[in-house]
């Protein structure tokens, strides 16, 4: 598509994008861990207009039995979009795209997990997209990794994902829906940030080798920022309870156990 045919300007000459972001800026991200009480682990991500829930069950008994692997756990990922998640109603039947994304999300998460600890069992990862706004596969991987960690499944590292791309000749970070559809290239990247290993890399569009290098570096930069948010979200859940308890002690000190509460309080202070 030549410049003159283009209907929308995605990046202005000043480097401002359709939603007011700079080229290397992420969308606002909100992460929450342990949002579902029935699941063994769960997480919710809001990244721009994306709203995605991830739930993890297991390791548990695998049905149907013939899928069981004798040397490791079977990782079963299910990516689904709600009928109301996109502009035009999506048919509730699993589409080709959903099946493909389930597969690539599974492959992005698998290298991070110690599946060999749980032979013959299954770890189920259910991902439900409630609202889609471009880059759902990346947001899904980020949320699913949090849910897996929340389920207490041993992992080498968290997995974090972010998309990079190109629009109007500029390399841009964390594409939204319109940049994804109208832009020149889209590269979703997932990696284990601490171990510096990429577990998912796809490319749709055209880039020169130099642009590709630049895009990967920008993507890794974005992933590192999301990684810090992921770790903070995981810790927050437990720190909250700890603070609540320490706070409760301060508000109602008991005459009888004064010594003990003081002791535990000073211990708590040391930690912080």
């Amino acid at each position, binding site marked *: 598509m030549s410049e003159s045919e283009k209907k929308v300007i995605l990046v202005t000459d000043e480097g401002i994008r359709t939603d007011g972001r700079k080229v290397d800026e992420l969308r606002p991200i909100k992460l929450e861990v342990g949002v579902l009480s029935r699941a*063994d*682990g769960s997480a919710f991500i809001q990244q721009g207009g994306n709203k995605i829930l991830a739930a993890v069950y*297991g*390791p*548990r*008994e695998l049905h149907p039995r013939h899928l069981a692997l*004798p040397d490791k756990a079977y990782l079963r990922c299910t990516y689904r979009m709600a009928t109301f998640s996109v502009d035009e109603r999506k048919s509730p039947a699993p589409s080709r795209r959903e099946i493909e994304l389930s597969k690539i999300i599974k492959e992005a998460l698998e290298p*991070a997990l*110690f599946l060999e*600890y*749980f*032979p*013959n*069992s*299954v770890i189920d990862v259910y991902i439900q997209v409630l609202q889609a706004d471009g880059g759902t596969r990346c947001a899904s991987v980020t949320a699913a990794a949090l849910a897996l*960690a*929340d*389920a*207490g*499944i*041993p*992992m*080498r*590292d*968290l997995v974090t994902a972010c998309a990079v791309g190109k629009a109007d000749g500029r390399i841009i970070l964390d594409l939204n829906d319109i940049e994804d559809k109208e832009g020149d290239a889209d590269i979703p990247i997932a990696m*284990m*940030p*601490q*171990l510096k290993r990429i577990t998912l890399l796809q490319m749709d569009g055209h880039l020169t080798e130099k642009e590709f290098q630049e895009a990967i570096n920008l993507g890794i930069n974005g992933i590192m920022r999301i990684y810090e948010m992921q*770790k903070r979200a*995981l*810790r927050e859940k*437990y*720190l909250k*309870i*700890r603070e609540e*308890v*320490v706070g409760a*002690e301060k508000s109602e000190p*008991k005459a*009888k*156990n004064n010594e*003990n*509460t003081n*002791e*535990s309080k000073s*211990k*708590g202070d*040391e*930690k912080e």
Partner: protein
Amino acid sequence: MYRREFLKMPIFVNKKEIVVPGDLLAEGEYKMGEGVFRQHDKYYATIIGIADLKGNIISVVPLRGNYIPRINDIVIGKIVEVSLTSWRVDINAPYFATLRAAHALDRKIDIVKDSLKRYYDIGDVIIAKIISFERGEPPLLTTKENGLGKLVGGTLMPIHPTRVPRLIGRKGSMINLLKKETGCKIRIGQNGYVWFLCRRPEIEQLLIRAISKIEREAHTEGLTDRIKDFIQQEKMQIERGESK
């Protein structure tokens, strides 16, 4: 707290700090406990939990995770299937356990005339010990030791398996406190099932609340004292309610 650079074995976390998968714990020569993996000479956490260092052993005490059977664990399970010579038991793990007749009964039984249903039937709750768990085989149980066998009556409460050590406490301090203060019979399975039999329903409700509180606040300091206060206060309230 533990920056031991002079030994060239630095530790990067404080004791009792909450760590998440991928956190760098230490560098150098350590022994690995649970929840740790090593790459070159660096040690990383693999699970969400609390960092711990005992002597030279670095480990992460898990805060989440399903029960995985281990040999010598005492577990509470439900009978789900009775066959001619064995029972299948749900022990809240990814694998059903097997209890063979030889590991449950003192004498041989005549499988033509007698049925294993007479001893443990479907739905019965048993407390048993895991005697073997080989790769590719279901865990094997025994009920032949003292205190093991069928649990009759009472209530079965599932808790999070990672909270079991806290519910027992150091040298059983927490569980002994609960038994002493409530007067209930309590048995705990490592798999996260707690069974108890109380004389009065109010006390049973109180015990459930206390266990829920322990489960929720397991990773906080000074919990035993708080639980003691909690039970004594609640008991006073129950008594006050009765005298009115």
